[in-house]
């Protein structure tokens, strides 16, 4: 009994048991390894995907829960907001080891897509992911770049440096 869903814009089915964390179904069954394992407990956000527009920790979401839903991973991220976020991240040269960054990009994309006029602090307050390299100043810059690209007007808050 497989689960049918829309995965990265395409109809797809997951054969993993319904009580399998979505994270492992995506990584092991679908080889979507841009979705990262960090803690397995919903604490770090490395496994963030977007489910029906919401940033979602795939290690805490079971396969059975996404039946009929739209699931997007970093591999399928597309659209104006996503491009602005990715470009902002690259402009800020945010990653170091880089392992947590797709999760941050997914979370930021979902938050900004839900409210493109949000200010930087509001977006940042909804990024509760963990980065052990401590790239937080660069992530603040990255979100700032993305909002400027989307809204034209420079944000009031200056860059971190």
């Amino acid at each position, binding site marked *: 009994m497989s689960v049918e869903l829309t995965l990265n814009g395409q109809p797809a089915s997951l054969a993993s048991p319904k009580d399998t964390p979505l994270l492992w179904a995506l990584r092991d069954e679908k080889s979507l390894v841009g979705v990262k394992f960090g803690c397995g407990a919903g604490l770090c956000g490395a496994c963030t995907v977007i489910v029906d527009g919401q940033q979602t920790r795939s290690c805490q979401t079971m396969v059975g829960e996404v039946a009929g839903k739209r699931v997007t991973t970093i591999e399928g991220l597309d659209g104006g907001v996503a491009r602005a976020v990715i470009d902002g*991240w690259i402009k800020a*040269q945010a990653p170091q080891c880089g392992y947590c960054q797709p999760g941050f990009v997914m979370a930021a994309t979902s938050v900004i897509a839900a409210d493109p006029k949000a200010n930087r602090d509001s977006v940042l307050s909804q990024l509760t*992911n963990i980065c052990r390299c*401590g790239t937080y100043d660069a992530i603040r810059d990255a979100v700032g770049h993305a909002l400027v690209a989307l809204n034209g007007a420079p944000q009031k808050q200056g860059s971190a440096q």
Partner: protein
Amino acid sequence: MSDVRKPSRGARIARRTFLTFAGIVGGGLLVGAGALAWRLKTIDGYKLPAGDGEASFGAWLRIARDGKIEVVVPHQDMGQGIYALAVLLAAEGLKVAPDAVRAVPAPIDARYANPVMLLDGLPMDDAALSAPQRATLWTFDKLVRALGLQATGGSTSTRNITGPIRTAAASALDALTRAAAQRFGTPVETLKIAGGTITAPNGKHASYGELAADAALFSPRAIAVPPLAAGDYIGRGAPRFDVPPKVRGQARYGIDTREAGQLYAAIRHAPRLGGRLAQASMPAGVAGVRGLVKGGDYVAVVADSYAAAMAGLDKAEVRWDDAKALNVSTRDVFDAYRAALDKGTAYKPRWVVDSAGDLAKAAGKEVRATYTAPFLAHATMEPINATALVTDAGVKVWAGHQSTSLVQLLAAGAAGIESAKVEVVTPYLGGGFGRRADLGYVAKAVEIARQFKGTPVQTIWSRAEDIRDDVFRPAAMADVSATLGGDGLPTGFLYRVAVPSITDQFVARVLPSAKGGLMADRTTVDGAVFPFYGLPNRSIENFTVDSGIPVGFWRSVGYGLNCFFVESFIDELAVAAGATPLAYRARLLAAAGDYEPARRASALLARMQAYDQATPLLPPGKGAKAGRGFALTECFHSFVGQVADVEVTGGEIRVKRVHAVVDCGFAIDPPNVVAQVRSAINYGLTAVLYGKVDFDQGKVVPTNFDSYPVLTLDLAPQISVDVANSGAALGGVGEIGTPAIAPAVANAVFAATGKRMRALPFDLQVS
């Protein structure tokens, strides 16, 4: 005042011990000077292999079939950007844009040894070397090169490869130019070099790729390279090539290894450290499970998917044997430290690693304090994992790691084959911080895969297992005391730190037959020995106390511990002397006399003073208190000063802003120096605010980011970095931001509240 630079008795003892050690290493390794010279010549003659259409220019550069210049990097990239730095060096030297260069992992060969890492560990003051010490270093450098250990750590990568890559690039460009001169029949001086093309006066031109085969036939000439200075890319930086794939989720880490037919293993270790597996069995018919592997201190379940392996692990029936398990709890460790320090000079092993003058003659007002730091986990974002394939021909390992040589050694040991039959594939590392220098996990992954010959098996540590199986930053306790003269400056300084030897434990894990305890563990006294302050009568002592808890190298290693203890104590001395922290440090540096580290530290202190005057303290929120703290350190041959602004509300410490001034000699890639310093400060802040791994009767208490919290975006300070280089020899960068943040914050909390934080992590209720 006695001469503070004269080699002290302690240094003499350390040197003698070291010479004995070097003799043993050298003697065991080689038969004599002739053999050593022969081996080094063989190593130096190494040339990169070149296939059809490729041209090799020695050990560091190759021009590939597609015309790209390949620079080899014998280090792992765990986020520090060493691959990007190698690209900058090669691009600058060969006068091409960075996108004409590709960085590739170096082959496994002694040519790519990292002697810097091991030489940094010797107990001697590099800024004041005696002639015998210089000779010893020279000899040791040769021995280490002959050993050929390829490794990444100790903030050494840039120092290790910058010279060789610059020299190789100059030599390769010389050969390309000569090839062009020959082809066009015109003198070298008339040629124009730009954008990877060499053009003759008559307009004829050829690309490096077209000239490569001819150029590779010239015997390479040694071309002198000028001192490091800003160029097109060096001293400026360029966008990192690894950034776009990392942002887009295309970068592949060890855990992303996907080989045909691959199986997955979930591993579980004995709940108590030192516990052994007594019995384990797997009920039949568990979905997806292929088998169970019994290890010495672990059990692993192998399945078609990791989810199935984890589910299988929960169904396995496992019994542990605790007969030899550790029974130690956190309190026992600190009790043992207290008892050792209380024994004083009667305690063994006690190492006087650095001393000067005569403490007995010191007199004045006495100040003393005791500081502590707990055990810490690395908690890299990518949990520990390794993939192994065991066949009759050998072993192939895919893993993030910090030493190709040690992966080979440990994988070979686990498979019962020779090292040369181990092939190592190194994807990106999802964090290293010293954790991936301890490669027991590779041995375990090979043991597990050995039971599934011919099939690649990926073993993944859950987050709880990642913490349980860590090698922790050691807990430490320091008794620090000083006597202050009438001018408020120290007449005597006694520093005693109780801590296990990381080096002894590390060596024992890699070479179980090796004898430890032969010399002081420099890595755990770094940050206290050879101070840049004028401390005329001093004794810096290491009390080695091992509680059996596995300890390892954690970003900034001993500097992270001792800089907190020393720079907090210097602040306490300033208070006792009635001086401001900055003015007091300036006087202490002046008291060091003619000493290069003191001059470099003074230059940074002046910039900290200027920043302090120009930048008002952030006003505190309602009901909060604000304070600013300072700290200064030398680490990994670089110098760092930090100014931290904190806000204290009730029992909560919030670090609002940090300003760092950095002298790493010369910044080859300045944007990345800024990024690394910010990173290391935030890494250190986790230790300041939360970091603590407790042990309960041999059990590791924390299991995940809820019980081992780490710094998050909302609480991360705004960090500015002033790269203020002296032009001195290159220093390290990757770890240098970590040490000074703890004392800077402690001193800021004191400025705000009058409460002195002497125990990490800081807790206003306890102190």
